[in-house]
């Protein structure tokens, strides 16, 4: 029995999604930029998908830019907004982001920092959630962009995106009102608003994506995390937000993202979000953002099942294995994440041992990554390096079963025991 618990890495494509895509690899192969009938058949698929995505995000179809995935969306959001603002003559704009972002946000931020942009990397609380007070304090006169991920990919913590969106909106409104009140001859240029971007890649299976509800100006999403295809993503850009293209060429996507459209991928993304759309539960909206205890109770449908399986996994692991730390705050995370540190065991060795049993998980441990550094997310949460190295992430999905959880709970304890038995220091220091 092969068991997959790595849905934060990628998800299997939904059969319905694949079925929608198939004709666009075959008879509907046209280039949507062509005006003949072949091109128009492809355009019809793209238009439908754009409407599906717009409906899902509660925005205008014209506010959706198709990209190659969330990494490109993040790069376009950050470099695109900053590029446009710099072009308007602002020499040293200020960007606020967090220490727990994906590298798709961190790397462009570090690059922009080298290019003279001022960047603030916000710390997080021990449960992996951004502190709103610290965010408010970080906002300065030259702040032009805030970028906070919706859900952290490693531990699954949910960030208060709606709250942040409202805070920024209020600051913008107050600034504008003050400017309006000033006498025309005294007031300077109209104040520049702060734009708010969220990387929603890990959130869309679980949380509302309504951009008006969230009060976001830009939102990144990816196809393959939501049972859609790889190599496709989108960036929502609210009308009026300045954006400079980072990829130049044949004027596609209103000249903001040149490159022949990935028609089958776009059609697949549309199909994938429309399946999510059906799962999106209105009552869940309000309660999810209120957070805390209510989060856990309000999961519905498939997510209710996933939450139950996750609880079963967590309880089973904690009961059957000593010296385990759960790094996922169950009260403030997706229902799918369970991130553990098994003290005295290197995470990668657990991953390999589980893989030999046919069970796929992930680790933020240095030994599984090219960098050999402990996970920046865990370090930001205040977890010691030696404990960060002991980490394993389970991320559950739609098709997991109770039998699979039971199997993990059976095979994991002897694996941990065996590996701890090899550690020269375990049982002495711990």
């Amino acid at each position, binding site marked *: 029995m092969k068991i997959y618990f790595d849905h934060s890495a990628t998800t299997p494509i939904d059969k319905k999604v694949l079925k929608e895509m198939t004709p666009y690899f075959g008879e509907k192969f046209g280039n949507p930029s062509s005006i003949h009938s072949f091109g128009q058949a492809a355009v019809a698929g793209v238009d439908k998908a754009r409407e599906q995505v717009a409906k899902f995000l509660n925005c205008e179809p014209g506010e959706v830019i198709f990209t190659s995935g969330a990494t490109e969306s993040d790069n376009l959001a950050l470099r695109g907004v900053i590029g446009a603002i710099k072009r308007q003559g602002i020499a040293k704009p200020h960007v606020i982001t967090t220490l727990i972002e994906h590298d798709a946000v961190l790397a462009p931020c570090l690059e922009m920092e080298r290019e003279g942009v001022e960047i603030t990397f916000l710390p997080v609380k021990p449960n992996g959630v951004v502190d709103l007070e610290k965010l408010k304090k970080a906002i300065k006169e030259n702040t032009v962009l805030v970028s906070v991920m919706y859900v952290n990919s490693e531990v699954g913590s949910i960030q208060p995106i709606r709250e942040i969106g409202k805070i920024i909106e209020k600051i913008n409104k107050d600034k504008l009102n003050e400017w309006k009140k000033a006498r025309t001859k005294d007031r300077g240029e109209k104040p520049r608003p702060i734009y708010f971007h969220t990387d929603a890649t890990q959130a869309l299976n679980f949380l509302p994506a309504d951009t008006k509800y969230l009060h976001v100006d830009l939102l990144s999403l990816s196809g393959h995390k939501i049972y859609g295809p790889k190599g496709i993503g989108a960036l929502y850009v609210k009308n009026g937000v300045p954006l400079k293209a980072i990829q130049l060429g044949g004027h596609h996507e209103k000249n903001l993202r040149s490159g022949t459209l990935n028609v089958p991928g776009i059609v697949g993304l549309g199909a994938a979000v429309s399946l999510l759309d059906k799962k999106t539960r209105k009552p869940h909206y309000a309660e999810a953002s209120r957070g805390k205890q209510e989060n856990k109770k309000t999961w519905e449908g498939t997510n209710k099942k996933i939450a139950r399986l996750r609880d079963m996994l967590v309880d089973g692991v904690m009961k059957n294995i000593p010296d385990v730390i759960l790094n996922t705050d169950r009260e403030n995370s997706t229902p799918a994440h369970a991130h553990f540190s098994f003290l005295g065991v290197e995470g990668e*060795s657990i991953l390999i041992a589980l893989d030999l049993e046919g069970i796929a998980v992930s680790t933020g441990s240095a*030994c599984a990554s090219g960098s050999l550094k402990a996970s920046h997310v865990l370090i930001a949460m205040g977890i010691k390096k030696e404990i960060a190295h002991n980490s394993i992430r389970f991320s559950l999905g739609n098709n997991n079963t109770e039998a699979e959880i039971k199997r993990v709970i059976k095979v994991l304890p002897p694996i941990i025991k065996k590996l701890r038995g090899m*550690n020269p220091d375990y049982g002495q220091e711990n």
Partner: protein
Amino acid sequence: MHNMVHKNMSYSKKVLEHFKNPHNQGVIKNADAIGKVGNPTCGDVMKIYIKVKDNKIKDIKFETLGCAAAIAVSSALTDMVKGKTIEEALKVTKDKIVKDLGGLPPVKVHCSMLGVEALHEAIKNYESSN
């Protein structure tokens, strides 16, 4: 989860075999010398126990905290030097271990260095106490 190296991340059959059933794993209670290297903050600790008679490594055991590669390296290294003279054991290089294991993913090559260091440390401790 991050900075994944996509090429050549997989382990050879021999590495997985050593990881699954490591040889010479454990403790020598009355060891003649012990070598310990690494640091838990880096994720790797390797400890090697040796028993020496007539200038030969009569027995050797290891304890390792680390990834599958670190455990496989410990197992292969102890196999390679068991029964060898001290001089022969000191000639075992990281490249020889990597070759014996049928290769290691590039990011894991440092694990073989750790093995060599642990052995050298044990031998150094043996020589300074004799």
